[in-house]
């Protein structure tokens, strides 16, 4: 176990506090954008198409970026206070780079009206776009800054872990596959961090390629790159980013849940096989985003379906089975932290299952452009990642006793969970009713029933979002009260761990 001096613990605590407060401020603002979008679809307000797509772009890019950044920061904190000494200077450098990127993106969307969606829809931003060219340029530069920041952070964590645990193969847990006695135990969180972050490095390389191509196109509008190549690069980057966000969260579930159940959760052969298989499948599963692209070679479409199916099995099945064996008859007290983790895992499972359904080619031909798609990713992001993050925040701010007795926090939590899943249900219902996604509103749909159902579900969703925000704010108050007092729970956790 890592030995830290009180001043080092304090510095780490300040770092994670900065991230916690950033998340608690930015996340509700991004939810409000979603609320406005659903209200527009429900015909309660009239944003107009241009504003709708601006909000959609900022909501998508902002949420994906914020959730990944926070998950990564939490992982950084856990690794940095338990397993390796991480350089907080690099941590803050990454934080401020991210801040610059976010400011740039906010400026280019809200003021510059950039509305191409997170996937940037090449080549449309360069062909008769209704927003000024500078906002496209600023968005691209902001995304490059974000990518470089994340890349540097990831490289630092990987390199430091590799130094500590004796190289890459040890990080991947391969020493467990031989017959020799393992000399040093590898904590699952370390292995999961490595397996999540290495594909991240490759994804950021792909991201850098398409962003530099966008930049070239920005400077020379007559250029025309291969659109299929662009789409492959963009979705490889985006899909991997979202996947590794989930896996970063799972890292701390593996690390923290045993503290509540009192049972060890150690690395073994099965875990190593499962996560190493995931390492491989993460990279190829993104092909399922391109089923609609008839020009994509057919073999890659099949590869996408197979990789999606297989990627769901190892890490998901093994982790869920692990969670069940952790909590089954463990006699632990259901405080807010294990609750968040358990319901978060459920959200991950439900969203993942919905994703696998949609990754089936024959189903995708029907579901691809419907609300099913936002349904599945909101399930594992809002119903999974956000709950994992809240679990971590409660762990950070509350002592164990406070976690059990915090009525306000629990009330906010249950309100959030119920409202979030009701909100998500409106997406799935929309999906099975063929309500199209990415529509600013449904007024122009000639099938009246589709228009009416779409608008009705959007109104229900808007009400659910309001309750999501209320639940979120209640939890935020509970966390901030505990986090901002002088003697926080962090010191206790670090010492206990």
């Amino acid at each position, binding site marked *: 176990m890592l030995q830290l001096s009180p001043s080092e613990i304090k510095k780490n605590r300040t770092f994670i506090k900065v991230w916690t407060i950033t998340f608690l401020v930015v996340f509700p603002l991004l939810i409000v954008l979603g609320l406005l979008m659903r209200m527009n679809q429900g015909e309660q307000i009239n944003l107009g198409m241009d504003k709708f797509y601006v909000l959609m772009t900022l909501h998508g890019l902002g949420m994906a970026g914020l959730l990944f950044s926070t998950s990564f920061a939490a992982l950084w904190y856990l690794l940095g206070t338990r397993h390796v000494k991480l350089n907080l200077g690099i941590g803050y450098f990454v934080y401020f780079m991210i801040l610059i990127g976010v400011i740039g993106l906010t400026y280019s969307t809200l003021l510059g009206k950039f509305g191409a969606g997170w996937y940037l829809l090449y080549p449309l931003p360069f062909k008769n776009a209704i927003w000024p060219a500078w906002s496209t340029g600023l968005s691209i530069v902001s995304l490059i800054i974000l990518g470089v920041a994340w890349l*540097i952070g990831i*490289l630092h964590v990987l390199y430091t872990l*590799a*130094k500590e645990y004796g190289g*890459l193969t040890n990080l991947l847990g391969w020493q467990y596959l031989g017959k020799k006695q393992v000399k040093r135990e590898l904590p699952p969180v370390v292995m999961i961090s490595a397996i999540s972050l290495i594909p991240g490095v*490759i994804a950021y390389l792909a991201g*850098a390629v398409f962003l*530099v191509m966008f930049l070239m196109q920005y400077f020379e509008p*007559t250029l025309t790159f291969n659109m299929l190549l662009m789409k492959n690069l963009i979705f490889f980057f985006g899909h991997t980013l979202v996947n590794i966000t989930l896996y970063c969260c799972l890292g701390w579930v593996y690390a923290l849940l045993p503290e509540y159940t009192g049972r060890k959760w150690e690395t073994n052969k099965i875990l190593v096989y499962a996560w190493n298989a995931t390492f491989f499948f993460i990279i190829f599963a993104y092909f399922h985003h391109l089923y609609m692209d008839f020009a994509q070679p057919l073999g890659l479409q099949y590869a996408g379906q197979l990789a999606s199916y297989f990627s769901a099995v190892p890490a998901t099945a093994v982790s869920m089975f692990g969670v069940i064996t952790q909590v089954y008859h463990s006699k632990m007290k259901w405080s807010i932290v294990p609750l968040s983790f358990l319901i978060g895992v459920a959200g991950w499972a439900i969203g993942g299952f919905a994703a696998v359904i949609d990754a089936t080619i024959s189903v995708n031909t029907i579901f691809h452009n419907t609300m099913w798609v936002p349904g599945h990713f909101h399930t594992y992001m809002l119903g999974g990642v956000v709950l994992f993050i809240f679990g971590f925040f409660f762990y950070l701010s509350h002592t164990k006793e406070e976690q059990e007795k915090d009525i306000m926090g629990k009330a906010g939590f249950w309100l959030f969970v119920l409202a979030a899943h009701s909100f998500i249900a409106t997406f799935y219902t929309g999906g099975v009713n063929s309500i199209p996604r990415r529509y600013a509103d449904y007024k122009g749909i000639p099938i009246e029933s589709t228009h009416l159902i779409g608008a009705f579900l959007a109104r229900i969703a808007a009400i659910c979002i309001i309750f999501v925000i209320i639940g979120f704010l209640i939890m935020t108050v509970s966390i901030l009260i505990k986090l901002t007092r002088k003697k926080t729970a962090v010191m206790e956790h670090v010492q206990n761990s």
Partner: protein
Amino acid sequence: MPAKAINIILNLAVFVLAWVISFPMNEWFSATMPRHQLLQLPAMLLLGIIAGLRSLKHITISFPWDIAILIFIMASLVFWMLPRSIDAAVIYPAFNRVMHLNMLAAGFLGITVIRQTIFEIKIAFMAMVSVMVFVAGITLITFNILLCSSFNIDQQKETGFRLIIAGIVFATGTLFTFFRSLGKKI
């Protein structure tokens, strides 16, 4: 042979080669776009690297200067990929020699920084350079209009194709360095 003598011989060799490329062979290197961009420019960079390998071995550069030098190298590479700069370099030999000096300096300082900077910056820099080279190649292949009036469209496409290969090789090298560094049992 003493280290000092090796240094002198090496630097002398670099100087002579740089002079040969810059003066007697300048016209030959500027005759086609692939020669200019894929032989002359990297050759000067390589000579700078060779000179820097031994000369600045014991010099320590502080972290802010590391970053400043890497930005200088990145900006230099971008500048000498711009069609206008390439045209000017081909038309005016004196301007071409500015490129030579720039590349020598980039290689000379670059190798020193790369050797001593932190792993994260090294990999991020190498990754961004490989991405730039790769994308420059794709751009040259994609563009059907002649970018540099000193050359022709076939040469432009050929340069693009070779830059793509160079980008892939460089990216592979970056990944190799990355995995090798992670694999080291330190």
